[in-house]
């Protein structure tokens, strides 16, 4: 079981210290938008502007997907005229934007977050409720607090 062994090795090197959940911002209604407030747990790990850029770009992507305008009307009417069978062969606009979002998150993780020991989980894997950011700690250098993956909000550092 080679995959099993690799993860065992990896788990010895870095451990999950905490998870931060960026909540939804409902101030403008039920459209998908996340709060840009910078969480305190990330203060030492990443620059505020980088984080805000990521969330703002994600919010823009979601706004683009949920925009109600000429293109969405056209898509809606055309789909209705074909009794929505057209979606068996065509991708909806939302699905196209979700693919773009997945690529963007992958890119951000590779370039910005993973080198800082953080990983962003795509909100769609959490029901579009939260952006989950996992904070990893270097097991080799951290002291007595390593080894456990307890996620209470008041982890002593």
């Amino acid at each position, binding site marked *: 079981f080679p*995959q099993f062994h690799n993860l065992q090795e990896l788990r010895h090197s870095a451990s999950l210290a905490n998870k931060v959940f960026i909540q939804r911002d409902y101030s403008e*209604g039920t459209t998908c938008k996340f709060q840009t407030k910078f969480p305190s747990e990330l203060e030492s790990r990443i620059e505020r502007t980088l984080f805000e850029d990521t969330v703002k770009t994600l919010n823009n992507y979601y706004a683009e997907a949920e925009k*109600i305008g000429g293109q969405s009307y056209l898509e809606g009417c055309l789909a209705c005229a074909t009794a929505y069978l057209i979606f068996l062969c065509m991708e909806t606009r939302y699905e196209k934007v*979700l693919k773009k979002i997945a690529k963007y998150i992958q890119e951000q993780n590779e370039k910005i977050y993973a080198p800082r020991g953080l990983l962003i*989980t795509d909100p769609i894997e959490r029901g579009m409720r939260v952006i989950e950011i996992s904070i990893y700690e270097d097991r080799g*250098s951290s002291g007595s607090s390593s080894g456990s993956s307890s996620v209470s909000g008041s982890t002593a550092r």
Partner: protein
Amino acid sequence: MSAVMITRKVRKWEKLPGKNTFCCDGRVMMARQKGVFYLTLFLITGTCALFFAFECPYLAVHLCPAIPVFAVLLFLFVMAMLLRTSFSDPGVLPRALPEEAANGNVPAGQRPPPRIRNVQINNQIVKLKYCYTCKIFRPPRASHCSICDNCVDRFDHHCPWVGNCVGKRNYRYFYLFTLSLSLLTIYIFTFDIVHVVMRSMNGGFLNTLKETPGTYPLKLSLTVLEVLVCFFTLWSVVGLTGFHTYLISLNQTTNEDIKGSWSGKNRGQNPYSHKNIIKNCCEVLCGPTYPSVLDRRGLLQEDTLISSSNPVPQTTVSAHKHTHALFLIVVSSFRHTDS
């Protein structure tokens, strides 16, 4: 002591909590009780079958051949909308994983955290309630369906006729179903009456009885049956369509209407309404088609460990995805800072 690890790939729908039934390897999602849904199917297909078999030949010849053609198209549209409403994910919100739910948990002895969160939406305070089953704060307009045991986004109601909840993702299909079914019922009802009137005009009841002595009483009774079914269906379905048209124009859900969230002393304060009937209709009917967040057909790896010392197999389910590669980057970044 020996241990055996059995790995098997399962689809995510097999591990979903809640009381839904899934078919076609996760492609179809419905509620558990489907009896009334089968009744709906039977009534629609049965009445239409009778119409096509007994009325349409006469009407096509004596009136216009386009009549059955239009009826067929309308019937197909009704069935497509019904199946789409019944088989799709209404907008179920997945349950929170332990780490997300733990954000609100405190050790015993301390005061429990508030289970109501106030948010301001378009200058209106809305209370978000905490769902104890799903361990989440319900987004605005979401509600927990006790029949399906899921929180559903923009929950309208649970419809037994359709065998599923009606929520954000399938509301427009539900509305188009009731609308097209109203049209189909009116259509069949009208042409049944026309058929009976034409037959009696063409020479009176007695004459036609002489022509087809064996079959006419049967045909007449079937026509009467269709008329009765259509008559009773008409009142309920047309009424329902009218009710939902009213709700759409105000951008409200059935759930909100029943609870009286935006009526009475709260009238005119619906923060989701655009205060414009056309805009409200466009948003609900021509808005974006939301994706399902459930990922029913995604793959999970189920590892079952059976050891001789502990005969009870321990199963862990995990999703080994591309985070594996990202995790390597995290680890290598720590190595860099070390060296």
